């Protein structure tokens, strides 16, 4: 999955696969996670957010299930 780099204190890059609604997050420590069944607009808002880490914390963490890849 193609990921776009973002500037954030904890997130390195973000990617999205619209076919399966999967959001992929790479943290600055190199760990990559996929969040499942995430709507595309959440992804759009995430990459546009002024604070990616903040948006991730309030709108994604604890809302969607994930797996490390």
């Amino acid at each position: 999955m193609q990921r776009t780099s973002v500037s954030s204190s904890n997130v390195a890059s973000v990617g999205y696969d619209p076919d399966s609604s999967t959001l992929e997050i790479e943290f600055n420590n190199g760990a990559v996670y996929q969040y499942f069944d995430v709507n595309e607009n959440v992804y759009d808002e995430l990459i546009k957010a002024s604070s990616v880490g903040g948006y991730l914390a309030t709108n994604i963490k604890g809302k969607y299930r994930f797996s490390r890849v």
Partner: protein
Amino acid sequence: MASKETYLGDVQDVNGTTVSITLSKSSLTGFVYIDGQGYRVGQIGSFIRIPIGYNDLFGIVSQVGASAKPENQVESEATGNRWMKIQLIGESQRNGVFQRGLSQYPTIGDEVHLVSEKELKSIYGQPDKPYFVKVGHISNADSIPALIDVNKLVTRHSAVVGTTGSGKSTTVASIINALSDNNRYPSSRIIMLDLHGEYGHALKDKANLYKINADVPKEKEMHIPFWALNFDELCEICFGEFNNEKDKNIVLERVQKYKNSSLAKYPKNGSSVDTLSVDTPIPFSIHNLWHELYLETFGTYYSKQAGRPIDNLAYELDTNGKELKGNPNEGITPIFKNVKNEKDDDEKINYLPGALNLGKHLLLLGSKLRIPRYNFIFRPGEWSPKGDGEVIRDLDSLLKDWIGSDKPATVLDLSGVPPDILQTTIGAVLRILYEALFWARNLSQGGRHRPLLIVMEEAHLYLNDDFKGMASKVVQRIVKEGRKYGIGAMIVSQRPSEINPTILSQCGTFFALRLTNATDRNHITSALPDNLDGLTSMMPILRTGEAIILGEAVKLPMRTFIEPPPKNARPDSQDPVVYDEVPLDESQNPGGWGIPMETNPNYEELIETWRAQSPKINKIIEDK
């Protein structure tokens, strides 16, 4: 004599390598400045120097205070508790070259001096020699690199011990990182047994990663062909214990027969039918062997028909009237009719005469042939023999993959090996490597000319005395004889007291990280090559990532801060985060107790991973 400010006190008592000294009044301030740098006097584990003529003796402070006083010392107010006990370790000539061992002893009244950083550097430091590899720096002297002699490290074996979370895996990753530096050691050769799959990520640039259920192309599928095992290993994995020698001999004779006919059909250089033994690694079909033995054990036959009983087997029929002969390749058992011996019925069915007594063993093997978890050993990809013993790839390409590839290191991720055969599998892998390098000792790819370092993670799991394990036997052989054939072991464990003492005592170099358990510590202390109580008593108070390195690969025992590998190349063994210390919007952890869990959690996927025996669920989008 050396500069006065380094002066600590005088020798009062010499007892073997233990020296007791009294501290002088002037050093009692506890703090000394040399070349503008401050040194604390009387730190346990610090070095001292005793100049004797043109030589310097060096020692380590092991005890300070009243109890360091020699036992039969008469009470004397003058010295009180200003005592220090020293363990002598080596000496240096006036030209500054440090050597272990002593040619002479100090005597009463000799001056004792502090060792300054400059002097330490001349003892420790020879960074320009390419056979020294840097793993970190000396704990209280950042400018001095901690150097390890690669020659001694590999051939004299080593052990890395420390409590969970003391930085063991990071230390191992750091050492391997340093050793697999392509510029310095273009043909270094390391193989690692990774029990928990921690190192794949850390070493991905430098190592080939073999794994069961591999994630191709990042990882490669691990195969350990059953026919490369010797007879004992094969029995252990296939059949378990035999009831008696007779049963074992029947299987032995049969395996030999299969190997014989395979070799006759597909000759291999180096072995002939005359020299073939049951342990020779020759491919044969274990599926056919199993099927054949199964027939002879469980078979029934029509006893009234003419001909050999084995030709008149009484198979049960399926609904289409076809005989249920089973399928050797899929491990499907044949089904036989029940014994029938009725007065008016002409069709008599009996058990085969002289039926084998291997029922339990064959049922066990049959289930293993069917279960996919055992495929890495019984259906080893291109190493799977056909019915007549034909294989696409032979052992040479297996070894080439493992220890002859373009990358310096290989990680065998054994996390998917079923626990009941883990011991034997590890034993078999090690024996295959040992035999190959042992016999090839004169060749350029043999052990003598291209030595191999075998890193054994979590060694207490399979080098334990309680098991009559194969692994323990092979490793004992490696640590005793491997030196001559270029096979070095690095044993990594958090529970050294469970490791066979013979194995531990053969390790020439120790990387001792924090180790709190007293039993473990005593075990290490007794196995240490140096007589250094003072240093080993520091083991419970080492910081994470700090190690005492001692033994043959280092000039002096050194308390070292291991330099961790770059962030993206650290082993995957960090503790799970229960509650992240940084605020939620900066946390790099998506989970933990501090974050609410998703609504309606999906436990179907949880079970999916268990059934698939793979942590990866299908839903994950893979990079193509």
